[in-house]
């Protein structure tokens, strides 16, 4: 199940919900707000999503993962709003009988989520500047990258 959340992601509850007697492997990925990006000191982030399509595309990514890998379950939540350093921006959890499938599917899901969902990230820097990650910056030739 994919969800966009305006409140902190309940990583403990989400992991517990994955419990299944047939699962031998559980792989979870979390993306955290970190204090630097491309060499600039970051103070905080704003995440924005177009929720109707982000949810539709997020569910599609999870469905593709279930089709491509031998999974028991797969889930993902993405945060929106104002985030502070250390906050969890995105959580992916996958269970499978064996760890090969769990690792591969977890990686597939986060890669696709980052590439395909209509979600944007505005960074606020220590020098007072700010910028939308991956977007060409008006008044500048630079394009900021993402991790």
């Amino acid at each position: 199940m994919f969800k966009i959340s305006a409140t902190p992601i309940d990583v403990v509850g989400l992991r517990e919900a994955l419990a299944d007697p047939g699962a031998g492997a559980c792989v979870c990925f979390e993306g955290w707000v970190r204090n630097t990006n491309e060499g600039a000191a970051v103070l905080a982030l704003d995440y924005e999503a177009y929720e109707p399509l982000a949810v539709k595309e997020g569910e599609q990514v999870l469905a593709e993962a279930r089709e491509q890998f031998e999974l028991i379950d797969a889930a993902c939540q993405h945060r929106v709003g104002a985030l502070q350093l250390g906050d969890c921006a995105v959580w992916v959890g996958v269970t499978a009988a064996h760890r090969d499938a769990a690792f591969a599917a977890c990686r597939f899901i986060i890669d696709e989520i980052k590439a395909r969902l209509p979600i944007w990230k505005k960074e606020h820097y220590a020098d007072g500047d700010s910028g939308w990650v991956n977007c060409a910056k008006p008044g500048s030739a630079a394009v900021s990258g993402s991790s």
Partner: protein
Amino acid sequence: MISVTARYFALFREQVGSDREAWTIPPCTAGELFARAAAKYQFLDGTARCKVAVNDELSGWDTPLEDGDTVLFFPPVAGG
């Protein structure tokens, strides 16, 4: 002429100063409307890096617009 609604997100919304705009234009594709908006508001990222949805469906830039459509212009995404 057709009337469509453009919606702008993230950086585009900031550049436009609004999250939506009504356009009355000759029949055209989503990409052609994007070119008009990009010229008007000086969007720097082109169609290769941006995405478009027509009536909440991700679509190709060559999708012909119809009267009443809502066209969503997505600047480069950065989830995760």
